[in-house]
């Protein structure tokens, strides 16, 4: 460790346990790193239990089991049980693939609090195309089973140019499935989504039209269904308050045990993200270089450093600054005060230009091990 000690550090509240990168689906907007195929090793059951115990002791209370597809881990019920005993509120973030009624009951027994099922579109054809796997009917069955067994049912749909025109049908589907929560997540352009951005980013007109429909629906279902609407920050003029501030709230553990201040932090240069095999969670949270890197405001460049909004948005997302400007210390270019703000307009224009093509020139790159290896070779 670097020997840094900072007394103003708040404890982690959210632990995101990425149990595995294995996933039978191939979503082209997947937030896993492009080079995920290079990280084959996975923490053992005992390692995960220790991670859960240590983070809980520090104050983490919300726990997400995600991946990849967390259901591919055979020890999931055992980890859920351990989490329940520790007092976590645990969320399973799943594509539904591999879920059976028996498993739903087993997980309920183990103490799982809720299941979030993702659906890619409102029609079988488009869902199965985006997921790269035949999965639509099964997902709907899983959603019904989740509801039947008394879990709060959270439906998640990632929105992009291929499905944004289905907004009315997506909302109708959520209603029909009896969702308690609907997460409409406009794609965030990291990882695979960054690679596919020209084909995924909606036009401003598409986005505005969809937003009006979603807002009207939100009012209509108020009191019955809660809508989480994740805005596409490319059409905002201020960035999102990424991670609620670096190293203040969120702790992500990747499948191989690397601890990340945000799930894309693996791609940032020189952070030396620590591994839970080498350090305790407390050492990682308090002392590691990675978790202290962008804590507070000292690291900021202008215009953020002297900006009176910095406590609101922390200068935006470090990964976005790095991906789009090449310098992770820069102001998130989504901000209209950023000297690099024009890169956002370029991205929008480039996506719009490709929307007018037939789609055969540049196909979507699906998230699978073969593409992962090809893309990381060069």
């Amino acid at each position, binding site marked *: 460790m670097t020997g840094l000690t900072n007394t103003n550090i708040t*404890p982690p*509240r959210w632990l995101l346990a990425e149990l595995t990168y294995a996933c039978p689906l191939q979503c082209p907007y997947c937030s896993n790193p492009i080079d995920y195929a290079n990280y084959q090793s996975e923490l053992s059951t005992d390692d995960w239990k220790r991670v859960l115990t240590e983070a809980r*002791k*520090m*104050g983490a*209370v*919300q726990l997400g089991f995600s991946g990849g597809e967390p259901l591919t881990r055979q020890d999931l019920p055992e980890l859920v049980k351990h989490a329940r005993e520790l*007092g976590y*509120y645990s*969320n399973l973030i799943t594509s539904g693939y591999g879920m059976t009624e028996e498993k739903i009951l087993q997980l309920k027994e183990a103490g799982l*609090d*809720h299941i*979030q099922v993702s659906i890619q579109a409102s029609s079988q054809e488009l869902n199965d195309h985006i997921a790269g796997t035949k999965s639509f009917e099964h997902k709907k069955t899983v959603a019904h089973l989740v509801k039947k067994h*008394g879990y*709060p049912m*959270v439906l998640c749909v990632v929105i992009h140019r291929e499905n944004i025109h289905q907004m009315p049908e997506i909302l109708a589907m959520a209603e029909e499935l009896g969702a*308690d*929560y609907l*997460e409409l997540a406009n794609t965030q352009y990291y990882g695979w989504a960054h690679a596919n951005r020209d084909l995924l980013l909606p036009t401003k007109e598409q986005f505005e039209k969809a937003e009006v429909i979603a807002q009207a629906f939100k009012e209509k279902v108020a*009191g019955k269904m809660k809508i*989480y609407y994740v805005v596409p920050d490319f059409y905002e003029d201020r960035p999102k308050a990424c991670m609620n501030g670096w190293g203040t709230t969120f702790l992500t553990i990747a499948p191989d045990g690397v601890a990340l201040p945000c799930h894309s932090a693996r791609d940032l240069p020189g952070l030396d993200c620590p591994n839970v095999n080498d350090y305790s969670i407390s050492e990682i949270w308090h002392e590691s270089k990675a978790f202290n890197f962008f804590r507070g405001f000292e690291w900021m460049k202008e215009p953020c450093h002297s900006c009176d909004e910095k406590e609101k948005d922390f200068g935006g997302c470090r990964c976005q600054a790095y991906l789009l400007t090449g310098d992770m210390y820069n102001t998130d270019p989504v901000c209209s005060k950023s000297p690099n703000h024009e890169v956002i307009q370029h991205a929008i224009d480039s996506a719009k230009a490709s929307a007018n093509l037939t789609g055969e020139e540049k196909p979507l790159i699906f998230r699978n091990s073969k593409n992962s290896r090809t893309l990381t070779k060069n």
Partner: protein
Amino acid sequence: MTIIPDQPINFSSLHRLQWEEAQQKYVILYPEGMVELNQSSAEILKLCDSTRTLAQIVSELEQKFDTTGLTNDITAFLGVALQNDWINQH
């Protein structure tokens, strides 16, 4: 939405009320969220256990804290709780 006086109040089965040692306070947990409660809100919600009506909650808390005139505050807070689906009456 207002509290129906003669019906017992349930705590929502889709939320969890829990003491957090690290924060030294009660919190409500639900999918992707958490609300931190102050002491009086927590005292009220703990009594929403499907056996007590509004009047019973009021009199129990007035007794416990040896005071009177809590009806308005408790009714107002329970209205907020109802709106947030933390409690219900069915």
